[in-house]
């Protein structure tokens, strides 16, 4: 007899009371919750996650594919403190979800134990927004729960707007950083070339040379001519001295020869003298020219890199598309009362079975 009473009490405590409480809560107390749902898909050129370089090939062809990493990025952003605070500013989330109109299990911080935003963030990610990714199709589902349909609807619309904005910002940032870098490099090398050309110009005007090689050529031909004349004068002198040593033309010839020699020397010193000679100018100019060429090559390369970066930036872009627009729910879909009651009953019933078996097992020991 005692046994039966105990068994009945056990059943009452483990099964009947929880199930009854579940029924009362789910049917009478629970605040009806409206769920607003939307679906978006994040796409990128070529997808990028495909094996064997197929992704980049498709990207090059301009094929848009769902991007898993992009989807995770957006999901993480939606469930971030950043977005929570943005929503808080606009919709007063915390106040709304701690309102007395919520039943005690659904309400945020019902006993005012920890009203911090850290705690609310936990609540926000658990009970306010829900996101999940269908890895097969790449579709991200976003759900928002609230006690009024309008609130859920508005919140979800804002979330969609925030995700779009986020994707745009990511795109801009991704293309900006690479492009900006290459543009800077390009500008820098261009500036270098310009400055260097200026230096060459200054050099040319200061030294009063235009083209040292040609000038040297001219000078050398002049030297050659003078030398020719010098040789003929010298020949003339030697014949005159051998024929008529007293010839009055001899001193004049000697003077002319000296003059020619002087002329030749001065010309030669212009070409290869120590300072300011054409030879030193020409070497310096050659060096300058070589350097200029190098700088020009650099500009070319930077331009190539810049153009490539421009193309790449286009490739990295993410695109967000709304598959299902948010709709204002016209009926509360939670709590799923029948389901919840069934779960409570099923679990408590199983628990009762196990505990009764345990107790019976223990009793077997004492009966001996």
């Amino acid at each position, binding site marked *: 007899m005692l046994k039966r009473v105990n068994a009945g009490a056990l059943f009452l405590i483990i099964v009947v009371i929880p199930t009854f409480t579940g029924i009362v809560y789910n049917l009478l107390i629970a605040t009806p919750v409206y769920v607003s749902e939307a679906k978006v898909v994040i796409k990128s050129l070529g997808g990028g996650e495909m094996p064997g370089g197929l992704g980049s090939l498709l990207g090059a062809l301009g094929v848009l594919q769902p991007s898993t990493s992009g989807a995770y990025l957006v999901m993480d952003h939606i469930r971030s403190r950043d977005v929570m605070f943005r929503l808080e500013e606009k919709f007063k989330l915390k106040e709304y979800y701690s309102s007395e109109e919520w039943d005690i299990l659904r309400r945020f911080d019902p006993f005012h134990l920890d009203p911090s935003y850290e705690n609310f963030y936990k609540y926000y990610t658990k009970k306010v927004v829900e996101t*999940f*990714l*269908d*890895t*097969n199709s790449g579709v991200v*589902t976003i759900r928002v729960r609230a006690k009024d349909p309008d609130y859920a609807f508005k919140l979800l619309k804002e979330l969609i707007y925030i995700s779009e904005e986020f994707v745009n910002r990511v795109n801009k940032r991704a293309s900006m950083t690479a492009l900006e870098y290459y543009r800077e490099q390009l500008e820098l090398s261009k500036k270098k070339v310009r400055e260097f050309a200026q230096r060459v110009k200054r050099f040319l005007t200061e030294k009063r040379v235009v083209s040292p090689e040609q000038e040297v050529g001219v000078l050398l031909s002049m030297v050659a001519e003078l030398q020719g004349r010098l040789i003929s004068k010298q020949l003339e002198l030697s014949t005159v001295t051998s024929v008529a040593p007293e010839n009055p033309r001899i001193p004049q010839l000697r003077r002319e020869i000296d003059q020619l020699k002087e002329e030749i020397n001065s010309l030669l010193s212009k070409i290869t003298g120590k300072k300011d000679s054409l030879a030193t100018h020409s070497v310096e100019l050659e060096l300058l020219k070589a350097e200029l060429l190098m700088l020009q090559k650099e500009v070319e390369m930077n331009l190539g890199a810049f153009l490539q970066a421009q193309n790449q930036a286009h490739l990295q872009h993410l695109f967000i598309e709304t598959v299902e627009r948010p709709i204002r729910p016209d009926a509360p879909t939670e709590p*799923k009362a029948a*389901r*919840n009651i*069934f*779960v409570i009953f*099923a*679990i408590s019933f*199983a*628990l009762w*079975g*196990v505990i009764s*078996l*345990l107790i*019976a*097992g223990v009793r*077997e*020991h004492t009966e*001996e």
Partner: protein
Amino acid sequence: MRDFFRSLKIQLRVIYALMMREIITRYGRENIGFLWLFVEPIILIVGVTFIWSYIVHREAHGFPVATFIYTGWISNKLWLTTSSRVMAGLQANLPLLYHRNIKPIDIFLSRILLEITAMTGVFMLLGFVFVMSHVIEPPHSYFHIVLGWYLMCWLALGFSFFVASLNTLTNDIVQKVWGPVSLGLFIGSGTFFLVEWLPPEIRPYALLLPSVHNLEMIRYGFFGNQMHPYYDISYSTSFNLFLTFIGLVMFRLATEKVRVE
């Protein structure tokens, strides 16, 4: 009607007594005694879960292996161990049938109930401990776990009747091939795979087994929307119903045979 309830009461008492007897005969009263009923599967499940998740793989297709192996192993062990216990039960307990109030069905039911209760206890306890110690993530939907598990228990009941009766009718042939058959069923029921991992052309064949549906349900309850569950509650239910019916019919034939012998 009153007679029926009186008989039911007697039958329940008989089943209860048989369960107690089974516990004592199987594990005795030494050391922890009947607690072995729970400890045995706990050691096994904890062992395989840790071996698979910490030594073999941590993740498979993006799913945590601990949750995956834990759910698969225990769910399929539930119906397969139960039926193998029941199969061995009738022969071992034949002398009991000389009692007027003990019928073969009581022997079957007591063993089934005992096995199911023990496994359910292990499932709940380990689930609780694993979640608390962060070995597995908290479940996403209790509804699916509970539904899948109860359908699995029902399958254990129907399948036990079917297999044990078939064994009696075929003079223990089933028991001789039971090793490979149960291993095949264990693997084929999705212990190591999700239906979504299979090539689409194989999926319909995998989904012929109701245990695959039930396991998909249980796993969906744990994983939530990161997996694509393939289950059909009405298929699983009608399969169970049909199997139970067939099992009971065969059970009648089997008891006839036992009585004649």
